[in-house]
């Protein structure tokens, strides 16, 4: 990548994202079939979602409600009348030969998402519309045939289209994460990218720094993780900048991100792009949203990430950084607050979460996993652990050991401490004798300390802790040791 620096300086990237979010409704968008993931192939199908002759779609009202929630949370205007439209193309996973989507009159328009609480940078949203998902073609089960699974056909999706307001590869996942947090807070999408319930395409172009014109746009598909979004866009900015730098021209095209080779590959050019022949679906009347319904939905909106972050800072005196980490996902913020409700030491609980818990989640690759119930330590356990420290029953160091042995176990921390005899030794009689022993064995060091070598103190504390297998209350050890050393000195 020889020209990286020159190109990056000369060209400004212009990026917009198209996000598809699978909605958490029980049933599909146009029929009563279940939306459950992971069922037997074609188990969740009926004549309607399998596109049989004579069937008609009936819009699931909940889908509209969820879309309105998303629209309100992202400051969109909600259309009082919008339309579903047919997007026509042939593919075996598309049973009707058209996808019911929205085209000219989407449900939500002109919104924005604030992606930085410091600078208040906004990414504008062009539109949010509802549509149905397609099924899945399976090519690797049989050698002689491709198979079609229509379980996903008709599962409701939101398509959220941003304006080209992003200006770097790093900014794109920030926006995407912020959007995901909003959808999760609204409880309308689980945000699970591995199962495909949240997907992203990126539109990327570059232009000369300082220019207002838009460059030739490339759409990148198959971005299935935050990392992929960032890496693919970074690659694409570089590729486009290099091409222009070398005097080449860019094609308006669709490219596919190849995760393994970390490159984008051309999929189809603008000339071979589909003509989808959109037109309003005559089977579905306009979607009418009246004021009372809108007011009702507005009233049930939950606290969104921005407000929750501000509240955590105010109520628990957390740093902006910690509050940001804790509110990035609704389930983490819920975890935090339910632990704090059981033991009011927010700062310590926050430290445990953003420190040890996040480390374990990351090690176990659970950091994208959205079910808190699957996490290896539950809020009640964490709260109790912090409480044991605060009560002086265990030291911070012992607590780490207790934390490790609690992983994947429903036991209470107190039980672990009792069972393993890890409780801190705080009674002065036993500490006295332990310290006396250490002082007796390490006469040379004691003499050195008394000779003015203060550093030896730490060594002596260490020996006491070692003798008590870490259980000695360190504050008391410090106090008793100091007293004894001073006393002997004086004598």
């Amino acid at each position, binding site marked *: 990548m020889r020209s990286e620096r020159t190109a990056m300086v000369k060209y400004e990237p212009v990026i917009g994202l198209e996000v598809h979010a699978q909605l958490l409704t029980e049933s599909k968008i146009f029929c009563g079939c279940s939306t459950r993931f992971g069922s037997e192939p074609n188990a969740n199908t009926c*004549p309607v979602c*399998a*596109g*049989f*002759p*004579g*069937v*008609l*779609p*009936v*819009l699931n009202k909940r889908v509209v409600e969820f879309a309105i929630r998303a629209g309100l949370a992202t400051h969109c205007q909600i259309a009082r009348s919008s339309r579903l439209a*047919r997007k*026509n193309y*042939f593919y*075996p996973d598309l*049973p*009707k*030969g*058209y996808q019911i989507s929205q085209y000219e009159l989407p449900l939500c328009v002109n919104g924005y998402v604030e992606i930085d609480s410091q600078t208040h940078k906004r990414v504008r949203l062009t539109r949010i519309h509802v549509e149905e998902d397609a099924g899945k073609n399976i090519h690797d089960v049989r050698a002689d045939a491709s198979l*079609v699974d229509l379980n996903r056909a008709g599962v409701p999706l939101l398509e959220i289209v941003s304006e080209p307001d992003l200006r770097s590869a790093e900014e794109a996942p920030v926006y995407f994460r912020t959007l995901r947090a909003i959808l999760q807070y609204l409880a309308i999408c689980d945000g699970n990218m591995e199962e495909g319930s949240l997907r992203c395409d990126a539109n990327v172009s570059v232009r000369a720094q300082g220019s207002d014109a838009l460059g030739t746009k490339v759409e990148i598909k198959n971005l299935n993780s935050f990392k992929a979004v960032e890496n693919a866009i970074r690659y694409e900015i570089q590729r486009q900048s290099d091409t222009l730098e070398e005097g080449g021209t860019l094609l308006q095209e669709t490219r596919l991100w190849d995760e393994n080779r970390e490159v984008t590959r051309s999929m189809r050019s603008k000339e071979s792009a589909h*003509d989808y*022949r*959109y*037109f309003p*679906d*005559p*089977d*579905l*009347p306009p979607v009418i949203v009246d004021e009372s319904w809108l007011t009702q939905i507005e009233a049930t909106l939950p606290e969104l990430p921005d407000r929750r972050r501000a509240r955590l800072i105010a109520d628990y005196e957390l740093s902006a950084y910690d509050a940001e980490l804790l509110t990035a996902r609704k389930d983490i913020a819920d975890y935090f607050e339910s632990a704090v409700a059981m033991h009011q030491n927010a700062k310590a609980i926050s430290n445990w979460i953003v420190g040890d818990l996040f480390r374990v989640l990351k090690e176990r690759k659970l950091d994208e996993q959205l079910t808190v119930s699957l996490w290896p330590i539950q809020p009640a356990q964490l709260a109790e652990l912090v409480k044991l420290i605060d009560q002086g029953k265990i030291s911070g160091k012992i607590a780490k050991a207790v934390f490790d042995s609690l992983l994947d176990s429903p036991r209470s921390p107190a039980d672990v401490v009792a069972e393993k005899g890890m409780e801190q030794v705080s009674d002065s009689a036993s500490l006295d004798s332990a310290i006396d022993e250490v002082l007796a064995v390490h006469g040379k060091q004691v003499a050195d300390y008394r000779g003015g070598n203060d550093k030896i103190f730490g060594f002596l504390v260490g020996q006491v802790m070692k003798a008590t297998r870490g259980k000695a209350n360190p504050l008391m050890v410090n106090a008793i040791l100091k007293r004894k050393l001073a006393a002997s000195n004086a004598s």
Partner: protein
Amino acid sequence: MSLCALTLHEASERLRKRELSCRELTAAVFAQIAKTDDRVHSYITLDRKNAEACATKADEAFRIGTPASPILGIPIAIKDNFLTRGLRTTCASKILGDFMPPYDATAVARLRAQGAIIVGKTNLDEFAMGSSAENSAFFPTRNPWDSERVPGGSSGGSAAAVAADQCIAALGTDTGGSIRQPAAFCGIVGLKPTYGRVSRYGIIAFASSMDQVGPMTKDVRDAALLLETIAGHDPADSTSVKRAVPNYAAALSGEVKNLRIGVPKEYFVAGMQQETEAAVRAAVRQLEKSGAAVEEVSLPHSEYAVAVYYIVATAEASSNLARYDGMRFGHRAQAKDLLETYLASREEGFGAEVKRRIMLGTYALSAGYHDAYYLKAQQVRTLIKKDFEDVFRRVDVLITPTAPTTAFKIGEKTQHPLQMYLSDIYTISVNLAGLPALSLPCGFDAQKLPIGMQIIGKSFDEATILNLAYGYEQSTEWHKKKPAL
């Protein structure tokens, strides 16, 4: 008179009085089919075994005195674009192969729930695209009045079956005249209800914004009875309307006094058959004598209706027919890859007229042409609707001929699609506007072929149409004439 010649209400009354059993009636219908259908070719599929079982059940229901619906035990023919659970449904197309529906169309389910006996599935123009029942992938249906002539279309099989007494009544569908034009050609009553009056669920879609299910019967009272049975909101069809269904039959009085009838001048044009014009004008005069007020009105955008229709209907059809791709049901050609499979399956499965309409509709929606064709057509459609709204502020109903001519000869128009399209010139506007309209016999031409008169009503005002038709019918004998078979 043979039992199969009974009207629905006559048969129902005799069943109720136990003068007749459903088994006898059903047997008479199948005997008539056996006797005549090798000449008429109304049916694609017969369901005799099930019909007999249903007749036995209906007799049992009469025996134990179940409160009887007027439809209970009545043998009814169903156009083969209605899905019938467990009974082969072809839409007169090879592309559906031996498609066995997993569910009943709502209209069929409602008939079955009331104890009707499904006789079989009647022929049609493939995917209901045509005006002569000649575009069937299987065989053309012949007009019972003259076997050299078409029965009209697309519900030609249902119309012929009713006219030939091969059933007591039938269901058809009407997208641009497909109930009314064959009803006129075969000398029966055909009603296209208001768009949204009857559920479209389970009807193989042609043009979704215009398709509508309706009765095809031997007289007006039968049409009223059948409409009552099938009409009403269906949660499975979002375009069906939540409005109470009146007791159409009970309300028939035949009183036409002070009814305001409009006669649109654009519907009487050069080129139409003189005898048709004369018969319709005579019928209007007769109604005037009975106390109706008649005035000439204008529907200025009528001349654009056929053009608008063949853009809107084909655009919707091009999308509706995309699901026939050989993947999940019906005909699949063996080919080397996916694209070839699509192309060959559809090439082999669809007939020429269906392909023509898919191409027309695809073109009309294509990038660069969408605005000039599809969008413009929708704008003109709005003007056509407005024409009707305007005249319906002054009159209660409109009377027109149903078709410009009586039944034409088989093969006469098959090479001239545009001429074929023009045989729906008087019926198409009604579908574009979503209004209800009925065709009933009003005379015969010199060839002894039936002439049909169309009564168009206000939205959801089927009651007024039916009552006017009933009043006229009461004063004539046209509906009692039978073809010699």
